[in-house]
């Protein structure tokens, strides 16, 4: 379990991270969302023991990051937002180097390297020089490096930046798999579609403060004060708009240029069904009636102002 307690980082007058707290359980994949300069990387670097917090701390599986950073380093896999690879070594040498650093016993080292290469689909590149790998492969090698010591917590800072769509999809699948393996994964990003689909938790950060945190569904629902319903009709759009306006639960009606009616609706599901029934009873020929699903991007845009420090 990861327990982040009032973590704070100041650089002189600038507060990069302002007393953030959250808890994650094994298997949680947290999407850490924020604009550039919001404090994501600083938070991750503090958790990776690279930066000393000004105050507050974090506890991973009962070990304090400030109290025993060396032990924490054995429990985390940190992947920064850049590759930072040695290009003059072979793939297996690079992994062997980190396996040695993480005290993987010599007799198990080959097996571990084979396993992580297989997991990241790099087995065929075992003897290749790191510099000869494509960007996507180098990214996967970075992830393989994070896995050689079977960490409890993975800190992935902008892991998919600069990857092509295929490599991005493969990386998503890999991260999902790590979550299923029971690891805590924190993935920071400002590209929201990147996170959708494989994160079960989300944290939105701006100006060093967490604005929303929790399971993705709850955060999205919690931000929806009203639903948006799109209605498409064969004809007589004005009359239908008038009828909708007078209906219970309707807050606002807007006619789009394409003939679609957008309804801001605060009623419940029954009232929503009644609205459709009333339109049909009134003789309107409805060809579309759908609820617009809010997503992380909507939530993010609603919550944040885009301000950086």
């Amino acid at each position, binding site marked *: 379990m990861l327990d982040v307690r009032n973590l704070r980082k100041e650089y002189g007058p600038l507060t990069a991270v302002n007393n953030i707290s959250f808890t994650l359980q094994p298997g949680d994949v947290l999407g850490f969302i924020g604009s550039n300069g919001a404090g994501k990387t600083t938070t991750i670097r503090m958790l990776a023991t690279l930066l000393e917090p000004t105050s507050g701390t974090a506890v991973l599986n009962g070990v304090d990051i400030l109290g025993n950073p060396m032990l924490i*380093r054995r429990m985390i896999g*940190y992947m920064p937002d850049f590759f930072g690879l040695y290009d003059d070594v072979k793939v297996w040498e690079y992994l062997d180097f980190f396996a040695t*650093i993480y005290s993987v016993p010599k007799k198990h080292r080959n097996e571990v390297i084979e396993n992580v290469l297989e997991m990241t689909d790099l087995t065929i590149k075992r003897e290749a020089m790191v510099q000869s790998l494509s960007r996507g492969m180098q990214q996967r090698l970075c992830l393989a490096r994070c896995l050689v010591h079977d960490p409890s917590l993975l800190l992935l800072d902008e892991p998919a930046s600069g990857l092509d769509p295929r490599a991005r999809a493969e990386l998503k699948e890999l991260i999902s798999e790590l979550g299923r393996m029971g690891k805590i994964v924190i993935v920071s990003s400002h590209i929201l579609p990147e996170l959708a689909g494989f994160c079960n938790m989300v944290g939105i950060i701006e100006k060093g403060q967490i604005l929303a945190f929790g399971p993705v569904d709850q955060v999205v629902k919690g931000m929806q004060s009203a639903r948006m319903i799109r209605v498409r009709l064969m004809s007589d759009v004005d009359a239908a708009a008038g009828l909708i306006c007078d209906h219970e639960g309707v807050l606002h009606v807007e006619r789009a240029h394409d003939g679609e009616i957008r309804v801001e609706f605060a009623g419940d599901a029954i009232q929503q069904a009644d609205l459709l029934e009333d339109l049909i009873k009134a003789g309107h020929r409805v060809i579309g009636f759908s609820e617009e699903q809010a997503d992380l991007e909507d939530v993010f845009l609603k919550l944040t102002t885009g301000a950086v420090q």
Partner: protein
Amino acid sequence: MVSLKSPPTINPIEPSRVRELWRKLVVENPMTIEITRFRRHFLEGGRGKSVNSMILVVAIIAYAGLLLVIANVSGDFPPVGLIFIQTGVFALLAPAIAYSSIAGERERRSWDLLLAAPITHAQIVMGKFLACLAGLATAFGLFLVPTLFTALTYRGISSGSYYDYVSPQAQGALPGWRALIEQELVSITFGMAVIAFTLFFSARCRRSLMALGVTLTSLFLGLLAIPSLLMAVGENDGRDLLLTFHPMFAINRIEEYQQSWTARSFDPLGPSWYGVPQILLNLGITAMFLFWAHKTVNFADGDKKFIPVKPSA
């Protein structure tokens, strides 16, 4: 009531602790991968390494030329001449192989990965040092062949081999081979000190080239500019003392002693007076800068600057 304090206990370093330190820093230091990287970087050509390959070719041609010259002047060339050249080469080679050791990790942005891994700063610095030392050892090995050849063939003083020669006045003094070994040790430990010195600046500077520039400037000042000024000042004890710590000066004084019966007669300490303090000084400088480098590497990329900014009032 007077309480008697027990005398302070001295805790000598236990042999097991020394062995443990040796195991961690040398035998099982993961950073010894640096030796492989060094070999690939400097001694192997290939894609993207055209500059290194060119330097390697130039070095091979220069070395072959040196061997030819030595063979050509066989018997007339003093071995100390080669040790001077070797020391000069070390003064340039050591910064060339060490300048990017740590600053290069920052530029490549692999530094954070090391700092976030369970490896001590001492292991990192020692691993880098050992890799550079491997480079220095290679250069030393290349110089050793012609040095031994000239030592065995030089006829500068007597009709026989120079290093078989011991004058009657030199009873109890050091034979020539020992002087040669001392000169070599001065040269090698000087190279080690320059590596440690360069590693220190590499640890402190954000950019490799800045580390190289600072190192070369310091070496230029310490080995050429300041000694030249001191020489211009004229003779005095302080100047001589300072020059005693100059590696070239020390090597030269050992040689002068070796060749001078008078010096042997009046100086009971022999060449050790000019060799041993210099060797110890070089080892001390090496240890000091390695320790300093290990103390200074803990700032992560972007965390601190070379010159800390004073907090505003």
